[in-house]
C-alpha cells in the first residue's frame, strides 16, 4: 500500500522532470532554459528527499544541502551575462562592466557594486 504510494509519488516527480526537460530543450531563450534548470534542481531535491523517506536512510542529506546552497549560482551567472550582453555600454556601465568577456565583465561589475555599497555605508 505504502509502496504503491511511493511509486505514484515517483511517477509524478518524473512527469515534472520531463516537463522541465521539455522546456530546456525547447527554449526559446537562454533564460527559459535557466528557469527550467532551476526548477529541475528543485524537483531533484524534493525527489531525493522522497527517496530517503522511502528507503529510510539519510545518506543523501549532504547532497541536498549542497544543491540548496549552489543551485542558484549558475542561474545568477547566466542572468548577469545575459543582462550585460544586451546593453554594451549601457546607462550605468562603469569601468570593467562594459568591456571584455562575460566573466571579466561580471567580475568588474561585482567589484564596482561592492565599492558603491561600502562607499555609501562609510558616509
Amino acid at each position, binding site marked *: 500500500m505504502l509502496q504503491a504510494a511511493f511509486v505514484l509519488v515517483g511517477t509524478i516527480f518524473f512527469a515534472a522532470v520531463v516537463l522541465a526537460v521539455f522546456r530546456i530543450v525547447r527554449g526559446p531563450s537562454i533564460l527559459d532554459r535557466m528557469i527550467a534548470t532551476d526548477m529541475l534542481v528543485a524537483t531533484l531535491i524534493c525527489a531525493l528527499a522522497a527517496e*530517503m523517506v522511502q528507503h529510510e536512510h539519510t545518506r543523501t542529506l549532504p547532497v541536498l544541502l549542497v544543491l540548496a546552497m549552489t543551485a542558484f549560482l549558475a*542561474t545568477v551567472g547566466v542572468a548577469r551575462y545575459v543582462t550585460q550582453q544586451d546593453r554594451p555600454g549601457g546607462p550605468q556601465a562603469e569601468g570593467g562592466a562594459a568591456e571584455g568577456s562575460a566573466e571579466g565583465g561580471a567580475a568588474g561589475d561585482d567589484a564596482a557594486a561592492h565599492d*558603491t555599497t561600502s562607499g555609501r555605508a562609510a558616509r
Partner: protein
Amino acid sequence: MSAAELLDAGSVLFLFAAALLSLAAGIGIVRFPDPLSRMHAATKPQILGLVCALVALGLQAENGATVAALVPILAFQMLTAPVSAHMVGRAGYRTRHLRRDLLLRDELADAIDKAHADAAHHDVEPDLPGLVTDEDTSTPRP
C-alpha cells in the same frame, strides 16, 4: 494503527503535496507564454515543495541531528531562491524577454519613458529608475 504507521502516512501525504507542486510547476513552465510568468511557476517547488519534502523527512527522523541538518537546507534555499529569481526577472525584463501584450500594466516602462522625456526636456542624462547597479544580491541577512 501504530504511531509509526501514522508518521509514515503523514510523510507520504507531504511527499504527495511536494510532487503535485512540482508537477504544477512543470505544467506552468511549459504552458506559460513568457520567461517571467514561467519564473513564477518555477518558484513553487523551490519553497513550498521543499518545505513539504523536508517535513516528510523530519517525520521519519530518528534523532535531532537529522532535523537540525534540515534547517540549513531550507535556510539556504530561502536565501538563494529570491536572488536567482530576481536576477532572471531583471535580465528578462531588460532584454525584453516578456510579452508586453500580456501585461495589464507596466509601471517600470512608464517610469523609464518619463525619465527619458524629462532628460530630453532638460537636456541631461536620463535619471533612470531602477537602473542602479548596487543590488541586494550580496547582502546576507543579519
